[in-house]
């Protein structure tokens, strides 16, 4: 107890006494400051024209969209050299990784097909199994048929290596392959 502590007379409960100390100044100031903040914050958002949460979201999304490069997920494959990708072990590694991360859930560990179709045989439903067809499948998926679109999920620079990796699976004859679906493409 410091010297200016004063016990309050008559305040004793089962041996517990109470001191007559004032409210600590800094504590009181903190309390007042939060009250001032509260009034200001409430007034700004609810009384004056502070943005609504929907307006804030729209503004944020617009800014993010303005940063997105124009043609980030092009499926124009005329510029892409499939053979070069197939021969490039780094690219194939990127492709294999992306496949393991995003595709095996439905196409199986080795592309043999489980929920989705077998990607290693010569039967195709949506394209000829060529680079463009696979790039489109990756970007847009077949949401009505159970394959989600991956354009927004897989970084665009990985699309071509992934597509090339899928092409490389052709004819690998993995075990437990799913029965053919679609038309044979020679």
């Amino acid at each position, binding site marked *: 107890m410091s010297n200016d502590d004063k016990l309050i007379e008559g305040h004793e409960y*089962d041996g*517990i006494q*109470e*001191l007559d100390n004032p409210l600590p100044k800094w504590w009181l100031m903190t*309390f007042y400051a939060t009250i001032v903040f509260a009034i200001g914050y409430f007034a700004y*958002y609810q009384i004056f024209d502070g943005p609504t949460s929907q307006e804030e*979201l729209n503004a944020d999304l617009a800014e993010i969209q303005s940063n997105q490069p124009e043609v980030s997920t092009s499926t124009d494959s005329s510029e892409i050299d499939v053979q070069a990708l197939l021969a490039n072990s780094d690219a194939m590694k990127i492709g294999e990784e992306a496949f393991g991360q995003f595709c095996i859930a439905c196409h199986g560990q080795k592309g043999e097909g489980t929920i989705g179709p077998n990607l290693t045989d010569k039967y195709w439903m949506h394209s000829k199994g060529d680079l463009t067809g696979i790039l489109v499948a990756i970007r847009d998926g077949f949401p009505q048929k159970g394959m989600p679109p991956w354009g927004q999920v897989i970084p665009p620079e990985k699309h071509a290596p992934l597509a090339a990796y899928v092409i490389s699976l052709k004819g690998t004859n993995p075990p437990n392959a799913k029965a053919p679906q679609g038309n044979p493409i020679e």
Partner: protein
Amino acid sequence: MPNLYYDDQVVRQFIKATLLWGLIAFLAGLLAALQLANPLFNFELPWLTFGRLRPLHTNAAIFAFAGNAIFAGIYHSTQRLCKSRMFSDKLSQIHFWGWQAIIVSAAITLPLGFTQSKEYAELEWPIDIAIAAIWVVFAINFFMTLKIRKEKHMYVAIWFYIATIITVAVLHIANSIEVPVAFFKSYPIYAGIQDAMVQWWYGHNAVAFFLTTPFLGLMYYYVPKAVNRPVYSYKLSIIHFWALIFIYIWAGPHHLLNTALPDWAQTLGVVFSVMLWAPSWGGMINGLLTLRGAWHLLRTDPVIKFFVAAITFYGMATFEGPLLSIKSVNALGHYTDWIIAHVHAGALGWNGFLTFGMIYYLVPKLYNTELHSKSLATKHFWIAITGILLYYISMLAAGITQGMMWMDIDSSGRLTYPDFVETVTRIVPLYWVRSLGGLLFILGALLMFYNLYKTMVGSKECPNIKIPEPLETRTTEKETGHRKLENAALAFSILAFIAIAVGTVIEFLPILRVGAYVNSEKAVAPYSPLELAGRDIYIREGCYTCHSQMIRKLPSDVMRFGEPSTINESMYDRPYQWGSKRTGPDLARVGGKYPHLWHFKHMYNPQDVISMSIMPSYPWLFKNRTDFQSLRRKLSVMKMLGVPYSDDQVGNADTFAEKEAKQIAKELQEQGADSDRLEDREIVALIAYLQALGQKGIDQTPNANENEEDEK
């Protein structure tokens, strides 16, 4: 004449119950922690799976461990502060045994999957009624003791007890209004946003009035007693008490920031949470400054160690709380393990340590002996505090890491970590650290059990303590201001009730007029009977403990999961399933994202589909048969509550559901599911529900919820 003596028998009973249930609550917590580190710890047992274990852990920690501790402290200190034995020994015993029976029934029903899925209010309606009844018994016993008290004035500890008892009753009853559909199944009268709002008004104030105010009351009694010093400031007691209970009740919406909750309610949640900071710290200051001049005890007395650490954790948690209520901080921390860190600083640090300190102080007194070993108690302190720090720091790091990964948008305007599982695998090592922290906390507690056991058996007899004469007798001498109130228990209680009623009413009335927020022109279709059956399975399995169904109005949420969730979309959700934690991805719009077969394989064993998943597997859903029988009753209750089902749908609910199940089973087989007779299995109902999520809105155009903003 027994009235000449204190009733300490019931205090000893409550202390033993605290220790027993504490151990169970801690062990359940450790197992749940391990399950997140490695899903093998779910053991593929329905009743032990994470979704059912987590509610068991939280209920045991709050209502069994903390609850019994509060009762022990209140029964012990109230008698001494009133200089009177409790009003009725019989009521004390009914309270004790009734409460233990409630805990046992919770420990049986939660693992069986009987749950309302509302956090800390999971228990089903028969138990809800029992809780209300026992609480009333407690209240009568307590308030009658105040009435017959010999001491003239009520000490600050009593004020906090009064606020606790009144408010918990109001909270529990208002949040538990539900319509039974079976012996252990009910639907709340509130739907969607109403349910969310009522639930978090309850949930937040359960923390306030079950884990804060009663413990502050205990602090005000046991800390000055243990150090034998006067309380630092009587004025501060008054101001911070009234400010605390008045402001606390408003802050519930901070659990729903950035969601579909109307902006005005979110704003109230933010500002009242910020204003809570100082009133909370008032308690900390009064506690810590009471120790002035007694700091040397900190070195020698384990009781003081526990008290000082508890109050410090209280100060830390009540600073972090307002911080997390700032919308932008909340955008980062909500749904992550930061919140888990926050509650455990409170639960382990503040509630746990205050309880341990109190018990180490009480047991020798109540058994008329010395503590078996002071040094063991000191060891307990150091081991437990290491455990808490490991827990807190690992979960803080996990929460901030995962929150930042979710929000991170790269320079080309895309999510840097679009794959959700990647953000999970990153923090799994921290789940192991957290488990270690929990283990240390338990090891410390085991030392305490041993130490107290030795203390108890070492005692020759429990003392019967005679009630001393009160210091002041109750005269009618004139008094003014607060001092007068301290002599008027009834007036004090009414004022405390008014203090908590103001915020409640102002936030509630508009929400209860839910029509103002649900736009009926853009209404949604109700769940089909099979989907409803699936939804009840989702609730039973506690999927909400890991999955939110609420896409917030934040760019990263929208880019990851789709358009923000609207109020309309959950207008028929009883109970609402917005969730509070995203251990797995948001499911509000998962419908149609995957083929049935994907869910089929995923629910059977998630790792077959997503190899790094930590979601438990649910093989029993492939064996259990869907309960078609109860659907008519369920739909009729829903219809009574205002869901637009036709009479035909209600009357033939089971037939409709069976037909829909056949269709889904057929589709599953076409997709290659390799089992037959699927149509009556629970998995099919669950898939029906999952595929319906986000698909019920008639208007799915962007910004469909803009109108409701204008209406505010």
